[in-house]
């Protein structure tokens, strides 16, 4: 079975004012992939994610989501695209003045016509998915960092999205919480068939969940490597990627 492209990026240029951050980005994310965006700090991973989620306009190039150009789309098309996407932000980005239940109910109230009771049940279900059953009335400030991320994930999953984006899901988590989150990502990917795009530089996550990846480099301002992370490690295309994937612990010798 040939898998369709869910996201296609063509010749994308990302810039802040006149400062070009990344250029010549072209890659495809296929349906049901777990796609990893790797790169050092400051290489523009979050900026790329902001473009993929329509929060920032690129300087050039196109971003096609299910064939529709996000840059040229009108507001209605954009809303339709955004309904297909769930995003887990680096900090969780839960609204601090609302309880977890209210946080998760917000997109449901916005986009669906479910009754209050149905929404309540859906919220409880989503919270149960991420292991937070019974936490409906807690405020974000009352739970731990790992729980906040999982609650953010529950909100991202509220509308049964086709694509879920994760910005550094393991940042600031202890190894076990971060492992739990990885398992959750795989569960979602396999049970719901969701396409997953993860920004991360956590090597263990990269190898355990990634099926495809790109490596962004701040020096050459473009993609230095593209492919399954395990293949990249076996057959590194260049030294930078090799160093990244081995934490710079081994010496690079070019395969002949």
């Amino acid at each position, binding site marked *: 079975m040939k898998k369709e492209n869910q996201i296609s990026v063509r010749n994308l240029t990302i810039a802040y004012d006149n400062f070009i951050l990344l250029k010549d980005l072209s890659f495809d994310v296929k349906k049901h992939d777990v796609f990893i965006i790797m790169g050092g700090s*400051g290489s523009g991973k979050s900026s790329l994610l902001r473009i993929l989620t329509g*929060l920032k306009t690129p300087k050039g190039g196109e971003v096609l989501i299910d064939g529709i150009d996000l840059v040229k789309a009108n507001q209605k098309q954009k*809303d339709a695209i*955004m309904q297909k996407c769930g995003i887990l*932000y680096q*900090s969780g980005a839960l*609204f601090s003045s609302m309880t977890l239940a209210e946080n998760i109910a*917000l997109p449901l109230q*916005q986009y669906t016509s479910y009754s209050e009771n149905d929404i309540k049940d859906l919220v409880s279900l989503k919270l149960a998915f991420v292991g937070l059953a019974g936490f409906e009335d807690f405020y974000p400030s009352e739970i731990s960092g790992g729980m906040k991320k999982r609650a953010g994930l529950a909100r991202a999953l509220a509308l049964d999205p086709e694509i879920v984006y994760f910005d550094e899901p393991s940042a600031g988590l202890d190894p076990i919480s971060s492992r739990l989150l990885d398992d959750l990502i795989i569960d979602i990917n396999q049970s719901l068939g969701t396409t997953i795009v993860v920004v991360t530089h956590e090597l263990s996550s990269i190898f355990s969940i990634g099926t495809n990846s790109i490596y962004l480099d701040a*020096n050459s301002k473009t993609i230095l490597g593209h492919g399954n992370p395990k293949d990249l490690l076996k057959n590194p295309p260049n030294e930078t990627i090799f160093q990244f994937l081995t934490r710079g612990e081994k010496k690079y010798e070019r395969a002949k």
Partner: protein
Amino acid sequence: MELKYIVKQNRLLLTLSGDFLSYQNDSEKEGVLKQVQASKIKTIDIDATHLGQWDSSLVVILFKMMQRARKEGIPVHLNMLPAGLQRLLNLAFAVDRKPPKHHTVNEEFLVRLGGWYLKTQTSFFKGWNFIKEVLHSFRRFFSKKAVMRPVDFFFSLEDCSYKALPIVALISFMVGLILAFVGAVQLKLFGAQIYVASLVTIGMTRIMGAIMIGVIMAGRTGASYAATIGTMQVNEEVDALKTMGIPVSDFLVLPRVLALMITMPFLTIMADFMGIFGGGAVSILMLDIAPQEYWRLSMEALNMANFLVGIFHGFVFGIVIALCGCYYGVFCGRNADSVGVATTKAVVSAIVWMILMTGVITLTCEVMGI
């Protein structure tokens, strides 16, 4: 501690002996460094057999010397140094890859002027678009389609109503007191202290009440709006809202503008009367005017037009303060620093815009003969 050097056959030999703790001998340091630059040495050796304890003050000399040697292409042999010192020096020379840097160029005056113009123009349009957004939100609000949680509105309302009362009451009482006091000193010269009552009443109701409330609320509520929304921006909550397709102007701006719009006129009325009471305190205690007399004179001076113009000022100031606070919050940068900048800008711009609006209203009233 001693730092000695000799140059022999194009070879600089540096001898370190004793303890180098907080070493501060500038002339010796300079001497070594000069040798590295000036003479035609080919290699540098360091003898550290008698080196005792050392700290960063020694490392820094060696570091500087090695930097120069590298520039001149002279090899430095470190292998005689203690292992820890060698390691430190190697660490200092392990350069990281530098991230690309935005570099600023010194531009000509005209180019800078042009840049300033473009920047002003874009920020003008940014502000204008923001106001349009808010107007759209109001339209949606009246057609009951705005995404606004009543809770947020009531929370804002609570914050700028009874919670603001004590400070508003205190400040406006004091302003009335000051107006009366300053007026009394002058009016006494003509034996006209009886007019203190009208001075305070007209002054407070027409403009001073509203201005004082405006300044207080800009510092109190406008700043808090900017800080709250700015922090939400830093925490990516604003991004989350946008990607959920919820207009920021509905969800964050609307409840705040509504709350201030509603409470400011009432706060202004309250300030007017507190000011009059403040004036009364001075008149009764200092000028021996009877309380009933002061009250009668004040009410005589109280003119409905002035009173309403004052309240209208309060209403306009409420909108200005809320818009400035929310605008700088929504367009806040992404770090803690920028929240501070946003808060400052919100307060300053709110005060500037209030003064400008006062000018506009006063001029309009003048033309309309109010």
